[in-house]
């Protein structure tokens, strides 16, 4: 799994690539936590290059979403592949997350 973070005006975009499973999800959660601790709580998670995600990845995303919502921030998702979208749907999370078809649209939605 690779993670690259880029700061826009008020929004941080974290692009994730590769597999997000129990081996890699703790690293994703740690990186997201670093943003929250730096008071960057308007976050877009770009999932375009995520080839696989298990419930471990969902756990990292939900715990971050809870943390940023407490301080009026948000974690919005961009570009989930059909495979990732299925996992979100199976877990009932498509109504919990704001999901956008592109990174730009997700950034502009803030």
């Amino acid at each position, binding site marked *: 799994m690779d993670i690259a973070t880029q700061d826009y005006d008020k929004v941080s975009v974290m692009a994730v690539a590769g*597999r997000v*499973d*129990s*081996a890699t999800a703790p690293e994703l959660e740690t990186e997201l936590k670093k943003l929250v601790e730096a008071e960057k709580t308007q976050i877009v998670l770009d999932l375009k290059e995520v080839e*696989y995600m*298990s*419930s*471990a990845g*969902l*756990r990292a995303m*939900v715990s971050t*979403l*809870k943390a940023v*919502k407490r301080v009026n921030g948000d974690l919005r998702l961009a570009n989930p592949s059909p*495979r990732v979208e*299925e*996992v979100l749907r*199976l*877990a*009932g*999370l498509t109504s*919990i997350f704001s999901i956008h078809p592109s990174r730009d649209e997700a950034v502009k939605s803030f």
Partner: protein
Amino acid sequence: MERTLTVPGRYNRLEQICEFVAAVATEAGLDETAINRCQLAVDEACTNIIEHGYGGEDKGAIDIACTPGQGEVMIKIHDHAPPFNPASVPQPNLDAMLDDVKIGGLGVYFMRQVMDVVKFSYENGGNTLTLIKRKEK
């Protein structure tokens, strides 16, 4: 013909397990969506074995046996952990509001959603999980 793989119970072996299962599912003629679902079910099963069965990494091995059949694949996952009772896992609340969302317990639920057969048994001093995925029509 049955293919087998034995790996130590470590999370960094999940990718290898997924690739092994995908190869056999491909051989059985399953389509991409079905193969992806097999990988998800097996990943969740093995994660549960490491996290809950063994109580951490490097506490025991995981044996996987895959049999490609006519338009289906049978996957048996065996561990050496104490007996697992699937009824002890609460059903996830998929309509929960954010504050109440709990991601624990999703593994067994995912398996049941994406596989055609999910059967837990205790045999030969360990748990055997039998998963079957049939070609989607």
